[in-house]
């Protein structure tokens, strides 16, 4: 055995190295526990919190009612009932939109699936309720969450991209579809 190793064995070098972090904290003591709800931890920008429906800058809903979020959702949170926009023939939108947040596992697949970026994940997470029914959200509630969480809205362009041609625009010369 070499001398160096003999000294390390003598002073329990490995144990000291293993306890280094612990012992350092012992010297520079600073509490880690946050006094929630008085103190809150800053969330990362890509935090996957409460879901929200978004609007364009002209207050129109972004959602086109394509049901892709419903298809993408692994736990069947979303229910979309699509229809033609009243007064705007051939334009599609979600007439009704429901989310059952009791089932949501915040995987964000609906947000990925959305072709028009109508869904967003907010930084909200304080959604504990006394009644589970309060977690059944409808379109108005989801839009309200979006309104308060995303004050800066995307600009609406009728022809979103020249290579997309028409996308969900209304045609005045077509009669409205019967309900």
């Amino acid at each position, binding site marked *: 055995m070499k001398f160096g190793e003999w000294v390390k064995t003598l002073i329990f070098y490995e144990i000291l190295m293993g306890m280094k972090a612990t012992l350092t904290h012992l010297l520079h003591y600073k509490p880690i526990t946050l006094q929630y709800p008085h103190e809150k931890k800053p969330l990362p920008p890509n935090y996957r919190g409460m879901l929200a429906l978004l609007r364009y800058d002209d207050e129109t809903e972004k959602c086109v009612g394509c049901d892709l979020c419903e298809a993408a959702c692994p736990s069947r949170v979303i229910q979309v009932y699509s229809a033609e926009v009243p007064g705007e023939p051939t334009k599609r939108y979600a007439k009704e939109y429901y989310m059952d947040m009791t089932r949501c596992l915040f995987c964000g697949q609906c947000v990925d699936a959305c072709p028009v970026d109508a869904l967003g994940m907010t930084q909200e997470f304080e959604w504990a309720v006394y009644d589970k029914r309060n977690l059944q959200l409808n379109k108005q509630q989801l839009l309200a969450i979006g309104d308060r969480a995303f004050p800066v809205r995307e600009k609406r362009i009728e022809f979103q991209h020249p290579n997309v*041609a028409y996308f969900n625009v209304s045609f005045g010369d077509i009669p409205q579809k019967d309900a």
Partner: protein
Amino acid sequence: MAESNNQDLVTLTVDGMTTSVPQGTLVIEAARQVGVMIPHFCYHPKLTPDANCRMCLVEIEKLPRLQTSCSTKVAEGMVVKSNVPHVDEARKSVLEFILANHPLDCPVCDQGGRCDLQDFSHQYTPTTSRFTELKRVFPKEYFSPLIETQMNRCVQCMRCVRYCDQVMDVKALAPSGRGTLTEIKHFSAHELDCEFCGGCVQICPVGAITSRLSMYDFRPWMLKRTDTICTYCGDGCHITIQKKQDELIEVNSTQGVGRNNGDLCARGFFGYHASVHPDRIMHPLIKQQDGRFAQATWEEALELVAEKFQGIKTAFGGNAFGGLVTSRCTNEELYLFQKFMRGVLGSNRVDSSARFGHVNGTLPLLSVQGTHRWTATFEDIVDADALLLIGTNITETNPITGLKVKQAVKQGHAILVTMESLLPARGTISNITLLATHHLPVRPDHYHIAIVGLIKSVLDNGLVDPGLETRAPEFFRAIKAAIDSTSWAHIEEVSGVSREVFSQSAHAFSSSTRGMIIVGQGVLRSPRGAEMVTNLLDFLILTGRHGQPGCGLCPLAEENNDQGAIEMGATAEFLPGPIAIGHHDTRQALSKLWEVDLPQEPASSLMEMFRDAQAGQVKAMYIVGENPVESLPQTGKIKEALESLEFLVCQELFLTETAQLADVVLPACSYVEKDGTFTNTEGMVQPVRQAIDPIGESRPDWEIFSALSVVMDQPMEYGEARDIFKEIRSVIPGYGLVGPVATRPTPKVDVVQQYLQEGFAHGLATRYVCTQDQPASDTPFLLASTQSLFHSGKFSTRSKGLLQIQSSGAIMLNPSDAKKLGIASGDSVCVSNAHGAVTTIARVLNRIPPDVACFPEHFDQDIRCLFELHIDKESHVPYSKLTWVRLERVEKGDV
């Protein structure tokens, strides 16, 4: 189009797999048979190859360049490669070209999720495109109320255009413009006006043509499919009902399935909303003292019916009951209804709506050849080389049988002889007379004399089957004598058809080897219907076509289960089978099976029931799904008869005029809410399956009969519709046991022999006598209540889709008559005769013959008062489709 025999087989290799296919097969079809799916847009098995999309390119050894597999026919020793890299490269390039202009609006496109272009893009293309140019944009045009086009999505495969032309023969769509700027348009300046068969919607590989009716209501992956049978006519088309939760979304049909092979008509494609109409009766209704209906529970309603029925049975006996059932019910329900009437109530007064005309076809078939079904199938129509269509505007009444006729004429080059009142004029919907080799324009009341003329030309031109004179000398002499009593001059004068046309038609028919006669409602639902059908059977026997393979007389059923109603014994003269009601052995067997004594009283049919009801002999009636108050004219005094009843039970979907007279109304299910079987016009028994839950508290008809019998202490209990079908099979051995193709019965030799020896004499004294109904000078127009392509009975007028195509009736006139009367389309016209006067709207149509006016029977609530009721002495069929009227123009201010 006979099946190829083994000598014509060609062996080829596709992607290393060797297969043998008949000569003339396309490479794409051969590849499909070995399981290689070659991507394609413009190819469709029903259409001729067009090879315009270039998607189906494959490499064929020893041929320069890549070949389109949809237009290349197989050859011996051919080696086809579809999975080599440069074929993939070619497909990638083709898709890149198509996607250069296709908008990326899949999220809002109704086809997204079942789109060929989407699938192929995922399979073959990178996610980027080299095209940086702007996409072409077509100005959006209003196309039609039910069919929506989005031409930016079009890949210009021309499938819709070719389908409309080649299959439907409507030619409503056409490409306009050149190159990438080609768009599909309809010819007219106004919105699309066509048959609305929905074929273009079904056949479009992308979302360029979609149904406006279900637009944005669904995404394809949400739909649950139910394969069932359409209920709108006797053709028995296979339909797939697509639902989302319990909401009916759309109807389509799969190519290669069912009797219709994926083709549908407007009624089948757009008519599905009738079942979920908000006016459906949701609960049992019991009439109160004040004459209003009050909602009741099933227990209350059934107990009341049972109590009343028991009371009447004890007081007056079973013969005081009358029962009428609609042929739109399933076989199981028709069987159970007649079992209920005969077994539980003990009445022989049972009838169904097959009485309105279909019995006129079945009774002669039974007496002449001993079969109650067609002796031919739809396939025989396609293979026929001569077709004689009598009194049927087949494209409107039975559109899918009509497609078989079109196929026979256009692809098989069959000779088509039409005897029909409509003129061969081109209109917005197809007209079978345009395809006719010989057209005999005969007024709707002159079919009888025209049939006599046809037989006379067979006799006069020596076209009679050579063996017949020796085989059945009495028959031949008697028919000849009967025919000779009518002179050519008389026939020509009355029918308006010249002797030459008759002989040409007779020559054309008798020179064929596979000749079929198709008889429509014009004959079956008009006076002397049964006689005309017997005469036509004589015509078949005389020309020697009777009993030959692929030949026969085919009466077309109007209602989906007319044929089943007769086979289930839901008509006065038949027990299930159909076996004559007096047949001793069958009665014994049924008594044993049902554990009751069958009633001995003579059977009475529909009109006799109403007559006896008025006379007070019938005390109670059980009407299932029929509305005689509306379907028969006021002169029949149906309402009075029903009002004089002590007790009337109606089992209905809607509160119809008849149901309003009822004491108890029981809510029944429509065809989408129950299981069972329908028997179509050619005798094919096909399964009907439940697609949605019953609406409200409604129950399937068979369940109601069963429940009622239990309350009446004579239980007929079944767990499901299939159990009833098992019982039907025990009564009619092998019923519904058919393979993929309906087995065709052949005429029974002994019955035909008996007919040729003595049976023919029955009614011979009258059935060839030509009578003529002269119009009175003040009522010169013959008003015919006709069927329409867009409606069937009164059920379809509850369908919002069909109402968008045709929402009201208009009196249809010939342009020359209209000119004479100073009437233009849209004018108000007063239609009057001795029975009353009605003001309606005129519509001038080229195909209406002179001196005839037509009105669609589906909207005849007002005009019905002008018709009279005639009852056939032999078959007891009530006729009310023709009347004589006077037409006058009404100024707008006078209305």
